[in-house]
């Protein structure tokens, strides 16, 4: 039996195909204007030598979940990230999900069920979009940011919370000749401190080792992980494909639906 999970995010759309509880394939495409849910599922299916007729159930998640007409069910990205992260790393109790336009902190119980969550409110300051804007200002690739920041010797201070003001700050740092790696390290720290605020708002008890997992595309940035670990004071586990965790969770729920 085959099922699919689609995560229609602000920046990218992801699909995961499951067959008998195992991940058969996945695919990631840029969301663009029209939404790419159908396309991404087709691509993932062809990787697994399957077609849409083979799918028993599709669950959609992500901010565009209501615009996935072929999905039989819509589930929020909060529940899906919880399900996906717990499947990959059963010790997960806290998830930090930093995506294209929002950041979330999700708390799970031992069974992997979501018990609490927090989301950034109406502002993209602690999100992937913030990193994109800064990469653009620094004229570097988004993917390079993590590695470059590790070379930093002196992290600069980015004091503005607002993405647009922070960009002006970055530009003035560039103009005053501060090395790019120090500016990037500062950008990471600025995001990390905002995400840490969200994180601690949902932490009431001691956080155990190996219980904090980061998902979402920003988790691929090693500099960002390092900054976050410094801010929250504990090691963060990153699954191999952090950006497909939501789609994986959706696929796992699709599988459960088939057995219900």
């Amino acid at each position, binding site marked *: 039996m085959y099922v699919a999970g689609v995560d229609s995010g602000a920046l990218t759309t992801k699909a995961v195909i499951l067959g008998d509880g195992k991940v058969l394939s996945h695919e990631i495409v840029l969301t663009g204007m029209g939404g790419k849910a159908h396309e991404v599922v087709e691509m993932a299916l062809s990787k697994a030598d399957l077609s849409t007729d083979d799918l028993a159930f599709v669950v959609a998640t992500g*901010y565009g979940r209501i615009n996935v007409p072929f999905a039989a069910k819509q*589930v*929020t*990205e*909060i*529940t899906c990230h*919880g399900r996906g992260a717990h499947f990959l790393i059963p010790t997960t109790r806290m998830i930090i999900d930093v995506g294209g336009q*929002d950041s979330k902190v999700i708390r799970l119980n031992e069974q992997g*069920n*979501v*018990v*609490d*969550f927090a*989301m950034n*409110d*109406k502002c993209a300051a602690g999100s992937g979009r913030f990193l994109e804007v800064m990469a653009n200002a620094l004229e570097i690739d988004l993917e390079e940011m993590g590695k470059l920041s590790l070379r930093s010797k002196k992290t600069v201070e980015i004091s503005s919370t607002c993405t647009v003001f922070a960009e002006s700050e970055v530009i003035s740092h560039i103009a005053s000749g501060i090395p790019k790696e120090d500016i990037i390290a500062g950008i990471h720290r600025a995001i990390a401190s905002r995400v840490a605020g969200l994180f601690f708002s949902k932490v*009431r008890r001691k956080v155990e080792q190996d219980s904090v997992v980061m998902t979402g595309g920003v988790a691929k940035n090693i500099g960002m992980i390092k900054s976050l670990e410094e801010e929250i004071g504990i090691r963060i586990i990153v699954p191999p494909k952090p950006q497909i965790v939501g789609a994986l969770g959706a696929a796992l*729920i699709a599988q459960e639906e088939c057995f219900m």
Partner: protein
Amino acid sequence: MELSIKKPFFTPKDLSWHERAKWWKDKGKRVLGYLCSDFPEEIVYAGGILPIRILGSNEAISEAYKYSINPYSCYVTRSILDIALKGELSDFDGLAITTTCDACGLDIYWRMEDQVKGSFPFLYLLPRPSISKTESSHKFFRVELFRFKESLEEFLQEEIPKSSLAHAIKVYNQNRSLLREIYDLRGEGFISGVDAASAVFSSMGNPKDESNLLLSRMIEEAKVREPKSSAAPRIHLSGSVLFNLELFELIEDLGGTVVSDDLCVGSRYFWDPVSTDRDPLEALATRYLDKEPACPCMNTESKVEDRLNFILMMLERYKADAVVFCLHKYCDTHQLDYQILAEELEEREIPFLVHIIEQNIGTAQLRTKLEALFEIINGRG
């Protein structure tokens, strides 16, 4: 114009502020605006004046910023000032403001005095002590209510007899008891969350005697209806002012239902009755100071504990599954209480979420938050 619950006199968009005031003034009567659920309307009603609650609206600010209005005041404050500065309250004979928080109380009063000067023949700041449940605060507030009554009598050029005040209390208590009955019927599925909220909203702007007739009819109609199943996530709403019923509607659209609240446009407005076995002003002073759910602006030592206990009582009474805090941006008093309330709910493993609103409720993100909360409640989370 005929009043109805479905199209409450009060709820936005249906009628302009001019129209709201005019239909009553056409009967040769006067209209007084008030801003807060902690305002003793009974005194105004006893003087034959129609008190209309002014909540603000989610329309964009167009005038207030020209008057150096603080952009970091809550949207309720900014919006009320904007409405007044645009001249939309020019048909109101008066405006009475209770000292609650500095923005919604004092700042609005001072600016109304300075910048909307002359608009209101009667403009009054009612000093409410910030401590409740003490003899001295009751005494103080009784004196202030007496002074308010005197000022109003001077404005009306006639006395407000004690009997009128006692009658007003009776009519208002009847309204409170009808609204409680509506909440109870909502809890049992006979009335929707939206309709029950509508009943409260309409009560804040309609004359109470007419409002009571409408509410009684609503109750009679509801009782013969088939109750709806109570399987949907049952939500308790916590917060202050909502400009309209959008949030109640959104929760229902997503498959949940609002069964209880501690909103300034909900139970905080009507829950506790006024005692009828003592001097009317003394009874009003006690009720408006000590009432539950308490106003977060109060400094009474037990305030947060009292607020928590009220929420817990409502959760039990109406079998609510979760609490949704919908708080205004820049509203310190509610947000400070929230931190403590959140910890207490968490300790009791009661699911909750907080959403910060400004001009609008911010539907897109709130939708995801509410759906995630419903998934937790339904076991999907």
